[in-house]
């Protein structure tokens, strides 16, 4: 065990090509999916939080349900849709990073929507009243709401990114954990552990935990700014 740990540190420091490839795939996947989730989730979340339109309540309930969706269920859904016999089988996206990103977007966009919706609900009334009182239109009011929520937008992004990078159920099903292609940190940890190669698994675990620590430090700092 001690030697596996020492070897893990060595692997990180030496920058083994396989490790670097896994890190690059992970970064590509989780940065893309979290950014897309942000672009989709922030406007929708602001809308849900600020406007009481008909049909809003069912949409909010659906969003909460999606937030709690088990990743493997999402993985299963996309596997069926994109497998050879599925309706989108011809797109040949199964076992690609692209499909991993798509599945993750479905998993994490509800997190961004929910977090923005909760926050914006709390500030919408005075902001909308003030903007309307100044004679501003809906578009200006939307941007004012976004500006009031800027720290929440950052922390929603970090939450989405943290979920994306740590998620394993969906990406292993639709990505297949193919070495040098779709293998990301979480799927690699499972794979190497099954193969008895603990050192690479530990190395990846250390990196994941470090990223998670940094993200949580950032979120905590942002929450400090939010409450001040």
């Amino acid at each position, binding site marked *: 065990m001690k030697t596996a740990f020492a070897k893990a540190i060595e692997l990180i420091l030496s920058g083994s090509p396989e490790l670097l490839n896994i890190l690059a795939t992970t970064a590509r996947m989780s940065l893309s999916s979290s950014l897309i989730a942000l672009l989709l989730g922030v406007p929708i979340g602001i809308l849900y939080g600020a406007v009481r339109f008909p049909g809003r309540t069912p949409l909010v309930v659906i969003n909460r349900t999606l937030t709690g969706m088990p990743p493997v269920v999402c993985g299963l859904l996309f596997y069926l849709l994109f497998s050879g016999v599925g309706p989108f089988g011809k797109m040949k996206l199964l076992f690609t990073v692209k499909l991993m990103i798509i599945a993750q977007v479905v998993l994490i966009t509800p997190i961004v929507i929910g977090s923005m919706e909760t926050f914006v609900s709390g500030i919408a009334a*005075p902001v*909308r*009243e*003030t903007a*309307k*009182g*100044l*004679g501003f239109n809906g578009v200006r009011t939307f941007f004012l709401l976004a500006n*009031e929520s800027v720290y929440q937008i950052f922390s929603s992004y970090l939450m989405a990114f943290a979920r994306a990078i740590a998620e394993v159920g969906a990406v292993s099903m639709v990505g297949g954990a193919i070495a040098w292609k779709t293998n990301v940190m979480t799927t690699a940890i499972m794979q190497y552990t099954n193969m008895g190669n603990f050192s690479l698994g530990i190395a990846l675990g250390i990196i994941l935990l470090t990223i998670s620590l940094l993200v949580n430090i950032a979120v905590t700092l942002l929450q400090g700014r939010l409450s001040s």
Partner: protein
Amino acid sequence: MRINAFTKTYGSRRVLDFPGCELERGKICAVIGANGSGKSTFASILAGTVTADGKVETLSSKISCGFMPQKSYAFRMSVLRNILLNGNDLKKAERVLNELSLMELKNAGGKTLSGGETAKMALARLLVRHYDLLILDEPCASMDMKGTIAAERLITEYAQKENAAVILVTHSLAQAKRMASCILFFDDGKLNDDPERMEEFLRFYGSDKGDPGNGGI
């Protein structure tokens, strides 16, 4: 310009039954009445932030209308930026800030202001732009005397220069007398023009609390 009649009901409670009235450009119309008499509801419906019962054509859909809610809100940006949101005339903005003794705070964060300072900022934000109708819900309620005097001067000047009709909700009867050419007296959600009831109300209120003027009514 004419304000059409409308009513407002919350649940089964009718909080406002407004018969309609005529407003004059360049003039200030004061709205007075006890707590809960429907003044803010009236102001919000005129401004379009609250909807009246049924379908009524409101003024705010026909003319430009500025509204200072009873509770002022500062956006997450500097005081000066808050003002310039509503027009980019820096000179005008600085003049109004100066009159309201906010110049020293112009680069401070809007959210760091005190209640009275926030109210001054909210008033300044409206005064830098032309509106046909300006609705102010107790603008001076949390301002100090100096601020109140400056605000009264600026509002009076605005009505004349912009040829705007101004609706001023106030608890200060002295202020209403100093500034307004007409007074709407709200009594339990209804306009009351019974002079006796008004007398009673005025007696009940006595002289103004913390009023910068002579307070004698």
